[in-house]
């Protein structure tokens, strides 16, 4: 594994690395870890706000890739995005003390953007950050509670004291804003 430098840049050869993992290649697994571990850890830390628990999720996610590389199928979207979603779901399960849902089979992602291209990847991430920060405060709060705390609409309504319909409208508006920005 010497010479494998950490990197967060997605690459078009993810499929090749995964093929090697399927064949039991630990070095390929280490390369996938180096490529995406920081992102996976950051997602888990964002949800759990605890470095120890976030590392548990980190290790768990990558051991899953090693044990079940077939769970990530070609055609299900970019590997980095897939790992981010799995990390978020695992972290939410841990936060809510639920048994890990393990339903990676319903994670299917589409992307018109070539996330494998470093420049497009970085600009896309920057753009999403700006869009999320520019959302009205109430929409930001609703998305925060839904996505990073894993609350249902009714739980958000109970937490904030807002009507359920208002919560749904805020989340819908935030999603529409995000979609417009991503498709622009």
């Amino acid at each position, binding site marked *: 594994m010497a010479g494998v430098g950490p990197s967060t840049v997605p690459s078009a050869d993810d499929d090749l690395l995964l093929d090697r993992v*399927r064949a039991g290649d630990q070095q390929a697994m*280490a390369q996938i870890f180096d490529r995406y*571990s*920081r992102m996976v850890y*950051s997602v888990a830390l964002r949800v759990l706000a605890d470095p120890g628990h976030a590392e548990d999720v980190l290790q768990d996610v990558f*051991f899953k890739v090693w*044990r079940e590389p077939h769970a990530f199928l070609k055609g299900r*979207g970019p590997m980095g995005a897939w790992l981010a979603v799995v990390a978020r779901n695992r972290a939410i399960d841990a936060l809510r003390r639920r048994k890990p849902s393990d339903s990676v089979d319903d994670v299917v992602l589409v992307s018109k953007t070539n996330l494998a291209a470093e420049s497009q990847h970085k600009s896309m991430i920057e753009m999403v950050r700006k869009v*999320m920060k520019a959302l009205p405060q109430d929409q930001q709060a609703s998305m925060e509670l839904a996505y990073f705390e894993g609350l249902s609409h009714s739980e958000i309504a109970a937490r904030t004291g807002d009507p359920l319909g208002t919560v749904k409208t805020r989340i819908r508006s935030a999603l529409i804003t995000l979609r417009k920005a991503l498709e622009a």
Partner: protein
Amino acid sequence: MTTGGHFEQEDLALYAMHGSTPAEAALVRAHLAECPACQAEFEKISSDLAMVAMSVEQHPLPEGARQRFIDRLADLPAPAAPVEVVPIRSEPPKRSAAIFIPWSIAAVMALVAVLLGLANNSVQHELAKDNYLIAQFAADSQHAQKVLDVLTAPEAQHVVLTAGKAAPVPTARAVYLASRGGLILEASNMGPLPADKTYELWVIPSNGAPSIPAGTFRPDASGNASLVLPDLPVGVQAKAFGVTIERAEGSPTPTLPIIMAGVAPTS
């Protein structure tokens, strides 16, 4: 929850974020399996949300995290046997043709070994794939059983959320899969019935054939009721669904009036 037979964007988002209740998730999952439009929208929402996840502020790994992963990785069994191809080094040609005979035999044997190795790897790959599929089927089956348990448990809490202070009205949500004759109905706010009466659900076929009885149900004290996989013929396309009040043992034909009805969306 639905508009024109489709799920709202925020409900699909909730499902994508694993925020739905098991019963809601079962309804969405069943709908997605049958509705390409909602499936496409669900995939778009999932992708949008993935970008939200990827946009979080990046933090360095805790010290030693990589080494801990590598160390533990070394202790785990490989997911599949690696392919190991041994290169064959060639020697300079000798003058006598007889010298090629053992090398030829060795080369043929090496080639056979490589081919056997590849074939072995292919078989192992297929085995790993089959094992994965079996595990998936088992997980799906377990998941389906959990859904049924939740939907049919007498002690399950059914909560209907309404906007503002609107008075709750009797509502029922049916999920129908004609190709399998599968139907799940969840009803809420149903009025109580005399002991000699029952609610009965009807499938109204789109080809004009007589209504098909799809099971009877009585609400609990909270007005909730469910019907899970009643005995129905396979392949009947439904135009609509209706609920009537019948005698306690049910009826082979509906007794008017139809107190609740819903038109099935056309695909």
